[in-house]
């Protein structure tokens, strides 16, 4: 038991350190969301209402979601793909580190990073943009975002099962942008044509932010929102497991 705790701690710590040192993660997970937030809040105006809440609060959620999606995809996918194709993952299998600890410590480190992103974004909203909300709204939104990131971690893992790290790197960023654009994270669905709204509603990115928008507006979260998120997570996980087991059979 002690051995497991020792390995987990070391492995998650190393993964955390590696993510923090990754410039791509910094750009796509932190710098871009913060910059876009300032630009779009300034250009639309602080006091506009959207979806029943202040635009500056609405867009804070959008950009936090955007950052978490980016961090999940861009850290997990390329790194898993690279480590598998370049033999590191194979070598690890000769060590006592359990296979599960390898993947799950990456995911754990990612979750810790996301707590950091949420704290940072919310601090920007509260301290810089002076958003006033009851404390439990903030807390509940943060918890929701931590739950809602599951399908994106699963998607990152799925991307990591492809054998071309360079392609995976590009694909991760493209997916982050597409999911955010179509999911109404850049421009709210209120400003989209009806057919696009239907697309958005089917996407995990929209559902991810929707939960937190609703919490901020003091509204209940519809049951299908977590259901859709979990559905995506299940599909991505099953696909990842299937792809990995097929590779295992060929080893």
């Amino acid at each position, binding site marked *: 038991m002690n051995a497991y705790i020792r390995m987990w701690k*070391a492995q998650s710590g190393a993964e955390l*350190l*590696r993510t923090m040192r990754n410039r791509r993660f910094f750009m796509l997970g932190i710098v871009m969301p913060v910059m876009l937030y300032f630009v779009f809040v300034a250009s639309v105006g602080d006091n506009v209402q959207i979806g029943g809440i202040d635009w500056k609060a609405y867009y804070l959620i959008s950009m936090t979601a955007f950052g978490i999606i980016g961090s999940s995809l861009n850290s997990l996918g390329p790194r898993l793909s690279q480590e598998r194709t370049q033999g590191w993952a194979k070598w690890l299998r000769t060590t006592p580190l359990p296979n599960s600890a390898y993947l799950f410590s990456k995911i754990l480190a990612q979750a810790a990073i996301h707590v950091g992103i949420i704290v940072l974004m919310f601090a920007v909203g509260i301290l810089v943009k002076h958003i006033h909300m009851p404390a439990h709204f903030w807390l509940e939104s943060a918890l929701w975002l931590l739950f809602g990131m599951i399908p994106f971690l699963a998607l990152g893992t799925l991307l990591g099962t492809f054998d071309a790290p360079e392609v995976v790197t590009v694909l991760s960023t493209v997916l982050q942008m597409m999911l955010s654009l179509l999911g109404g994270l850049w421009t709210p669905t209120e400003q989209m044509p009806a057919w696009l709204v239907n697309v958005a509603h089917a996407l995990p990115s929209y559902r991810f932010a929707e939960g937190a928008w609703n919490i901020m507006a003091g509204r209940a979260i519809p049951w299908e929102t977590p259901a859709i998120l979990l559905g995506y997570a299940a599909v991505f996980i099953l696909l990842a497991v299937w792809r990995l087991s097929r590779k295992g059979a060929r*080893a």
Partner: protein
Amino acid sequence: MSPAIDLNKVTKRFGKKVAVQELSLRVERGTSMALLGRNGAGKTTTLSMLLGVSSPTEGRLSVLGGKPTDAKVRDRLGAMMQEVSVIERLRVEETIELVRKYYDKPLPLRTLLDWSGLTPHAKLMTQGLSGGQKRRLSFALALAGDPELLFLDEPTVGMDIESRQRFWETIEQLKARGKTLILTTHHMDEAERIADRVVVIDEGILKADGTLDEIRRLNRVRTMTFTAGPDVTPERLRALIGGAETAWDGRRVRLTAADTDRLLRTLIRDGADISDIEISAGGLEQALQTIWSRERKGETA
């Protein structure tokens, strides 16, 4: 005590390709074994199965009395794989520290840095290491858990002279401490330096298995070197010894033949003026060439 490794009619197929065929092999603890063979002979495939990275298509194997996938067994073995790989965005010392945590009784960081010659590079990011340095890091990582059984798949490829020297000195120390070593290499001097036992495979089939001396003696060709006096001309020599292969370097003659004893007697009987005679049986390299040439003639070893 159970043997270090035990393969029982192990076969590995990749589709139609048979990489290893009914290989049976038992290596006792404390042995240093060299697994030799040409490119594609099945050495890496055999090691992968022993390391639990891939599984045999048929047959059974055990490592240190257990399954190689068992965490308890893995805690006691170390491996340098043929493809070296490092993880990015960690320093050399951070990588070693991380891997040390996987094992119950790891060696100290300082020792590992010292043995791999990486002490001056401890703070470097791994992605900034040169090819040879990466291989040295993989050596440090293989030793991190103070393994009883060490697998080395072409470990010195890309290492400079000094690193190679340090590497083999460390390996000799480990051998003296009773560790079991399984080595593959294409450098026969390396195999001769540390192997007690030599196993030769070709196309996945066992071709020879014996002590270093036994395998060396498979070589029937000897090399005889001598200094020829002024009256020993190439023509005269050819008349005496027939078709044996000779190479002249000034007055120094190198002669390669299977029956050097008979040729030497002929030369002495003839009264040829030759001096400084040396006869050598040749090393592993010649022995392997003998095995390959038998193969071509369809003989069995």
